[in-house]
């Protein structure tokens, strides 16, 4: 048998073996179907991964944009130009490369009572290019603000990317600044004369933990009742340090009508959460902040109701500022004792 004959016979056998041929075709079709299915799911998975990767990339880009926002606040002034209105002025320099859009300005006002208020205003067309300066000049209504009291103002801007740009915190309004500047020439502490008040306990003993009664805003002091005096002081120290008052601080009065000089004094007191505490250590007056300082309880019993008298008042403040001793007397107050 030669080779040509063998090949022919094999070919005949292959053609004649139809069962084997069909199984091969079936297997090929099966593989094709599985391949198409697997490929389609693979491609689908890839495309979904691509979607997710795009989302991650966008998130990263947004974070980068947000982090790249950089500003410098050059000037900030707050002016309570009439009742319940505050003007906020500031210059904000965009020291980053991307432009910044400011969408809202917020204002927070507080005093030492403590009394707090806030308000906000939406900003329109408040965009600033990289390297440019944006001037903010807005008026905000803050109910209860007046032009003669001391306030602490803080303000901040919200950008479209969600960042917060804080403006400088400032204290006081225009009128009070004048009086504080006068006081500043004399000492480091100024007193808010309009905020003076006292608490009248009657003739009763003021024990540890006694709650303060309602305050009275008056310079008419009863002679026979125990009173605690409350004085609002603001630290304007030139060196911007805190002042720590110790127990050697008093409100001291003398009478010029009694023939001989007769004094009375209220020791500096500890009032915590509206209650009198009979132990006093120190009280810190933070720089730039108004702090209520309490004195008493005591009664100016030298004056009788039959002989009402106006007396000079000396607020004697003693303590430390930094490592140095501090002492100041505020002599601009008078009481009417009756």
């Amino acid at each position, binding site marked *: 048998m030669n080779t040509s004959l063998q090949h022919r016979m094999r070919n005949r056998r292959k053609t004649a073996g139809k069962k084997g041929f069909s199984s091969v075709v079936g297997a090929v079709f099966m593989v094709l*179907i599985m391949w198409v*299915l697997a490929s389609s*799911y693979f491609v*689908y*998975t890839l495309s*979904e*991964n691509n*979607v*997710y990767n*795009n*989302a*991650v990339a*966008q*998130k990263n880009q*947004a974070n980068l944009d*947000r982090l790249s926002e950089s500003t410098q606040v050059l000037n900030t002034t707050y002016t309570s130009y009439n009742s319940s209105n505050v003007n906020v002025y500031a210059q904000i320099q965009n020291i980053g490369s991307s432009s910044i859009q400011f*969408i*809202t300005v*917020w204002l927070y006002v507080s005093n030492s009572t403590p009394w707090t208020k*806030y308000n*906000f205003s*939406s900003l329109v067309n408040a965009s600033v290019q990289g390297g440019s300066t944006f001037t903010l000049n807005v008026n905000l209504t803050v109910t209860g603000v007046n032009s003669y009291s001391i306030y602490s103002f803080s303000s901040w801007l*919200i950008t*479209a*990317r*969600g*960042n*917060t740009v804080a403006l400088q915190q400032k204290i006081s309004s225009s009128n009070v600044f004048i009086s504080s500047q006068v006081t500043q020439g004399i000492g480091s502490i100024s007193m808010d004369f309009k905020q003076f008040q006292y608490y009248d306990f009657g003739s009763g003993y003021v024990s540890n933990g006694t709650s303060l009664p309602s305050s009275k805003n008056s310079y008419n002091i009863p002679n026979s009742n125990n009173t605690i005096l409350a004085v609002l002081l603001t630290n304007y120290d030139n060196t911007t340090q805190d002042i720590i008052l110790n127990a050697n601080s008093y409100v001291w009065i003398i009478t010029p009508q009694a023939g001989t000089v007769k004094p009375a004094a209220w020791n500096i007191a500890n009032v915590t959460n509206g209650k009198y505490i009979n132990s006093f250590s120190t009280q810190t007056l933070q720089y730039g902040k108004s702090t209520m300082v309490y004195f008493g309880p005591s009664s100016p019993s030298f004056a009788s109701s039959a002989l009402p008298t106006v007396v000079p008042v000396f607020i004697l403040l003693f303590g430390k500022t930094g490592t140095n001793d501090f002492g100041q007397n505020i002599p601009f107050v008078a009481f009417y004792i009756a």
Partner: protein
Amino acid sequence: MYFRVDRMRRLRFLALFEARRAVSAVISNVILIAAVIVVGFAALAFTQSTSNTYVTQYGSSVRSSSEQLAESLAFEYAYYNGTAKSLWVYIVNCGKINAVSLTAAYVANATWTNSTFTIALNWLNGTSISSNHLDMGQEGYFVWPAIVLPQGNSYTLKITTRRGSSFEYQLAT
């Protein structure tokens, strides 16, 4: 000649019925093929169904994650009104996706936590947001009533969105 061939065919055909072994082989083959086809189609249907479920779940998961990534809320301010015992939270949608709604808010410190799941969003002008969600660039606030936060403490305020993102803010009372 023709009659001989025809007769032979008939004989063969009749022989098919007489040769029972051959018939049973054919029947068994047919049954086997049918069983293979049925099982094969069943397996294919099961595979496709499972794959479709996977595709649906995977697509949903990817979409959900992508949308979650695009969400971004910033706190403009949070104010606790000690008199009214209410917490006012101001937020802005600074993300890249619309319809951001809040599902929960939490306030906690080291030893205490409180939560609310009823959050009604308002525009900054005080009117209610009917859709109760914020689109891109929109600002709003919600009030958390009847919550007692002692003064002088620091808390972590956390809000979570419907898509599952959460954002935190340090709150001082």
